[in-house]
């Protein structure tokens, strides 16, 4: 009867750990331009393969090739480059500001700038993102003021959120950027709900949900896919696979499926995998999905394959769980350098102009920072008021909160 061998628990492990030599040989990378571009109304079953490949546009020579190329003009590409550079400079300053004690917490985007910066450009005014804490590029590319971002990060007297929220948990309805929660995955189903609302109202606006590789394990990911599939909600469901969830490698959330895009197959939701470090590829694939949504063809799942170069946040040090040089070994390169090289290859850009742009951008960021700091930082200068702490729990303050505010002396 029990002639079976003893069972064993399988616990997935990353290929390498601190002290090992980084190894991405298991990441299969198709040639740029090699993956088909189906029509947006293709039968999801016929394009299952897209969930297991990687759509790429920029090749090693910096050329844009294949069926997903050719969507963006030089001006748009230069703007994209500028946005990514701005985000990178912004990150660098804010990481430093956190170290200087000007705020409590920061999350940077190093290596992942193309994802949010390019995606932002595929939306129409009124469309709504439901971002995580690692999509500030959406705000920057949408032209949201850097100073306002910083005031939020500093929780100062000009903080649009009145000091109530953790740094980087921005909110801007005007910029199509839903209030960040901090609770993982909750916003994914909210994006679906928002999109359903738009469809209920016969509106034309669509929504975009955002989630990290690790967070796809959360249950609200399932809720989102079930609702999106059932009601054919006009929503783009983005998974940013940056290989890590704090200290946990993506294999723990992914399990045996090979990719995160594969999750879409169980719902017949078209699922595409894209080189997340390739601005042109991100734009092209996102545009395809956004088009599907606007045309009422239903949801699309996109996995952006990228790499989190920095720490998870200012609260951790990745050297404790992965080789220090792993990011250098990442085979999809750096999104800023790749777009820069492409523009240089095209003759639309040069090393010199790049250096100049870098300097200009730094000036802009520094100016914004100076302006923001003139309104205070977390523990110094202008502060949100204690009254603000009591306001906004409800539209109208109920008696018990009024009493508490009085007790607090305000």
């Amino acid at each position, binding site marked *: 009867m029990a002639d079976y061998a003893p069972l064993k628990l399988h616990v997935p492990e990353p290929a390498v750990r601190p002290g090992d030599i980084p190894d991405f040989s298991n990441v299969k990378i198709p040639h740029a331009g090699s993956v088909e571009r189906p029509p947006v109304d293709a039968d999801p079953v016929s394009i299952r393969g897209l969930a297991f490949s990687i759509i790429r546009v920029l090749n090693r020579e910096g050329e844009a090739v294949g069926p997903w190329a050719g969507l963006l003009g030089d001006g748009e590409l230069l703007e994209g480059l500028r946005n990514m550079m701005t985000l990178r400079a912004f990150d660098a300053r804010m990481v430093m500001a956190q170290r200087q004690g000007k705020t409590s917490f920061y999350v940077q985007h190093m290596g992942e700038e193309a994802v949010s910066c390019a995606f932002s450009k595929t939306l129409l005014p009124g469309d709504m993102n439901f971002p995580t804490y690692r999509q500030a590029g959406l705000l920057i590319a949408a032209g949201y003021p850097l100073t306002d971002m910083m005031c939020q990060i500093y929780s100062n007297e000009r903080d649009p959120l009145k000091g109530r929220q953790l740094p980087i948990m921005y909110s801007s309805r005007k910029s199509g950027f839903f*209030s960040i929660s901090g609770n993982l995955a909750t916003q994914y*189903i909210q994006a679906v709900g928002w999109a*359903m609302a738009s469809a209920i109202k016969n509106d034309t606006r669509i929504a975009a949900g955002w989630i990290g590789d690790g967070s796809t394990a959360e249950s609200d990911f399932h809720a989102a896919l079930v609702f999106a599939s059932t009601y054919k909600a006009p929503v783009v469901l983005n998974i940013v696979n940056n290989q890590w969830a704090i200290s946990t490698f993506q294999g723990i959330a992914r399990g045996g499926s090979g990719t995160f895009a594969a999750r879409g197959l169980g719902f017949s939701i078209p699922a595409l995998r894209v080189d997340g470090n390739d601005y042109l590829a991100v734009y092209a694939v996102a545009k395809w999905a956004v088009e599907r949504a606007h045309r009422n063809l239903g949801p699309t799942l996109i996995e952006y394959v990228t790499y989190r170069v920095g720490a998870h946040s200012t609260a951790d040090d990745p050297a404790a769980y992965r080789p220090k040089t792993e990011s250098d070994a990442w085979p999809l390169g750096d999104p800023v350098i790749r777009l820069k090289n492409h523009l240089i290859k095209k003759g639309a850009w040069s090393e010199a102009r790049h250096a100049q742009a870098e300097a200009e951008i730094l000036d802009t960021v520094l100016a914004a920072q100076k302006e923001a700091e003139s309104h205070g930082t977390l523990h110094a200068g202008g502060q949100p008021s204690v009254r603000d702490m009591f306001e906004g729990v409800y539209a109208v303050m109920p008696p018990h909160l009024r009493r508490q505010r009085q007790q607090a002396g305000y």
Partner: protein
Amino acid sequence: MVEAIRDAMDVMMERDENVVVFGEDVGYFGGVFRCTQGLQAKFGKTRCFDTPINESGIVGAAVGMAAYGLRPCVEIQFADYVYPGYDQIVSEAARLRYRSNADFTCPLVVRMPTGGGISGGQTHSQSPEALFTHVSGLKTVVPSNPYDAKGLLIAAIEDPDPVIFMEPKRLYNGPFDGYPGKPAVPWSKHELGEVPDGYYSVPLGKAAIRREGAALTVLAYGTMVYVALAAAAETGVDAEIIDLRTLLPLDLETIEASVRKTGRCAIVHEATLTSGFGAELCALVQETCFYHLEAPIKRVAGWDTPYPHAQEWDYFPGPARAGRAFLETVEA
């Protein structure tokens, strides 16, 4: 009370096209308690529809819709099944206005049948109101009769913030005083069973005095209002029975005035005693009326066990238990 609740949604769906209604089995079928019957036929299936069985999905989608500008009024089939949606209520609906400084808001109603007395066992009988009253940003409402149910639900749908609307299921078909053996009384025979047509609202945050009295203040809500009335009648205690209607924000003014007058207070709820809403009521009364109190405040509540099936009427805090507490309080 089922008709009153349905009527409230009907009226609001008519007045405001942003009101949408959904949940498990609420569309074609009209809900397992039939509270949404006819709404899909009348307003179409994009205004009233069935959802997948996923309470987090129901509330989460509703939060997204509310942020868009709709006014979702969703049903959780039983309060016992709200827990999978609890995170979306607590972490999202309740805090959206605050954390975004009103950049986004969440005008959302989460309806759910609550309480026991229907042989529903541990998964169809719970009264989890205290799990909501602890959460800043939520309002919690428990009507005790059709008139209030309609008026309060209309007020809840109109409210700019998330409201938890708990419907004592044992009251759906008539008042119930805790005697399962007595012949059922339909609402049509009850003064508060009369529900005016059309629009009216009962403001959130205002209690109602169901019986005036001088000897004892009784705080109750939902089914327990009738249990308290029966207990007062049986014991002859001249109790002032306050039907809270809204637990949060609470009508502390009415409570305080009454306890100052009577000098004694008892609290009745069906939920499990420990950390139930009665604890908060007790704390508030002793904080605000300490020098007027002549006896300890008594709590009569469900025992600290899961809701049993066979022993339902031993668990249920009926008139006998309430009456004993009333007498002890006035005699103390």
